């Protein structure tokens, strides 16, 4: 530091500062973010490549072979049934040996096509849900590591030397995270829809009920909402605990332990669990949950019972939004009020 101790007379500010621009730069410069996104891309490409090997387009010859296999099973089944009837004999034979197997019992012909054809209506829809769930998990990690690293390095405090309005700092970080996670979710969903259409065209069929594509886009849209909420939830938990690893641990304990305990001990609370609401949000028409309401009565006898409830898309969205809002708000309020070391 001996060469130039003179303070240069350069202008201190040559352009307007932007917290959002700085936050965007900070986010995309994080190595952890880059590694997670690279792994996600590799995982997606690998998954689609693997899927492409598991499906094959139908041909008259493959359909004929599947049909033959199905008929063979019917013939063999009927043979076994006749043996059974002969051995048992009498009036009880029909009851013991059961009715004859029918084509309806064997299900769709596609079940006998190996590899099966890719069906956009079914596999494409499942893929939308799977991609949304995996992207949401990634978004939770990104949100948690984004703010957790700021706390562990205490660069959050250094930032306040430049922008002391804490709510503004938090708002900038949350805005960047929400926008980037939405972009990530849209890209992931779009990539899957394109991949699904390609798989349907080359390895199966795009046939489906009317309005199938609109339904898929609707599911993907709900997936985008889920991804944004999970990124904010990860951010909120890490911001409350001020540590990335603690946020991951909290997530593991909640999903692996707390939810299972609740399902066993308080089944009525299931419609308010994050996993159930995630599936309810993503699945077309929501999620049906069977609430086990069996109990031991006053005489000690076990009484079975239960009912099925439908957790709709809107319910799922509202519960997830409410939980995320509470966690994020708690972290922001504490950040705004607490003394910082």
């Amino acid at each position, binding site marked *: 530091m001996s060469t*130039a101790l*003179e303070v240069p007379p350069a202008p201190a500010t*040559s352009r307007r500062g932007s917290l959002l621009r700085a936050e965007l*730069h*900070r986010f995309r410069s994080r190595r952890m973010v880059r590694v997670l996104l690279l792994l996600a891309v590799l995982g997606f490409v690998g998954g689609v490549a693997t899927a492409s090997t598991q499906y094959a387009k139908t041909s008259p010859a493959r359909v004929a072979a599947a049909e033959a296999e199905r008929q063979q099973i019917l013939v063999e089944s009927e043979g076994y049934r006749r043996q059974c009837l002969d051995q048992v004999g009498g009036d009880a034979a029909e009851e013991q040996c059961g009715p004859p197997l029918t084509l309806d019992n064997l299900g769709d012909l596609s079940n006998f096509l190996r590899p099966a054809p890719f069906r956009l209506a079914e596999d494409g829809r499942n893929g939308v849900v799977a991609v949304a769930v995996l992207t949401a998990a990634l978004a939770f990690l990104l949100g948690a590591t984004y703010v957790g690293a700021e706390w562990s390095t205490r*660069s959050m405090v250094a930032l306040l030397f430049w922008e002391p309005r804490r709510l503004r700092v938090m708002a900038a970080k949350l805005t960047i995270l929400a926008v980037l996670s939405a972009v990530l979710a849209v890209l992931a969903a779009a990539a899957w829809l394109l991949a699904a259409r390609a798989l349907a065209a080359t390895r199966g069929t795009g046939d489906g009920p009317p309005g199938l594509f609109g339904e898929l886009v609707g599911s993907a849209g709900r997936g985008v909402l889920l991804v944004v909420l999970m990124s904010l939830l990860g951010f909120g938990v890490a911001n409350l605990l001020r540590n990335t690893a603690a946020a991951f641990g909290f997530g593991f304990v909640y999903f692996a332990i707390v939810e299972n305990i609740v399902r066993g001990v308080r089944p009525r609370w299931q419609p308010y669990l994050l996993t159930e609401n995630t599936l309810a949000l993503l699945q077309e028409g929501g999620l049906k949950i069977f609430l086990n309401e069996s109990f031991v009565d006053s005489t000690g006898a076990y009484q079975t019972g239960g009912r099925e409830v439908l957790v709709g898309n809107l319910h799922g969205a509202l519960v997830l939004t409410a939980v995320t809002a509470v966690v994020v708000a708690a972290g922001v309020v504490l950040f705004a009020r607490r003394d*910082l070391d």
Partner: protein
Amino acid sequence: MDVIEVRGLTKTYRRRRRPALRALDGLDLTVGSGGVHGFLGPNGSGKTTTIRALLGLVRADEGELRLFGRPVPKELPAVIGQVGALVETPLFFPTFAGRLNLQLLAETAGVSRGRVEECLELVDLRDRAGERFKGYSLGMKQRLGIAAALLKQPRLLVLDEPSNGLDPAGIRDVRELVRRLGADGHTTVFLSSHLLAEVEQVCDSVSIMARGRCVASGPVSDVLAGRSSGDVRVRVDDLAAGRAVLERAGHRVSDDDGALLVAGVQAPADLTRLLAGSGHWVSELTPVAVDLEEAFLALTADAVPEARP
């Protein structure tokens, strides 16, 4: 206008399973514009809490705090652009390069990239600015922290132990830099340091903290004079006769390595007159100076212990 004004600042930290800690106890502090102001005090005296309150990181329980006449924290956003700070250890992303760490801060306030390069040059880090912060030595980290504090070309530069981790050449350069900044007519440097010699060499004025209060403040020379004992070292040819003259006049005199040490002298010239009147010619008359370390130790020891809640 005063750069820093603190009136009756009180801060108590509530701690789990331990008694509350009163870090600031009605602190009054004023730092005028320009120059280098030293901020001294033993560990736990409230220096860091004061700096954190100045920067809006800690909320005071009572009292007023102003920067450039603006109340803090309410109007801190209006003046933060004129304040650069290095508080304790530099706070940067370890996996980011030094340059990137500065650029991220610069973008927040609209500081140009050219200014980033200038500040890196200023602390002699330009050649290593592409390396990750976590690979830096302690001294390099400290220098990057100083560069960050200078990015805004602040009117108030708050430096908390800036020489930490620096080698002797680095310490010398930081002192030189602080001196230059304090003398540039634009910057006021508020320097918290444990190195009393550093403060004495560099600072124009000083405030000394003890138990959450400011126990002395003003130009360094005034603070030292305030703690002066009034002792004077006197040398005459006949020490025994001279001592007898002085003691007859009511002075407390002791031997001091070939001279006499006269305690509590209000007017040293009186000794000259007294001795000359008795035929003893004075060959040395030296007021015994108090250095900052002695003043610091005396002041912080003098502070009356407060009953802690």
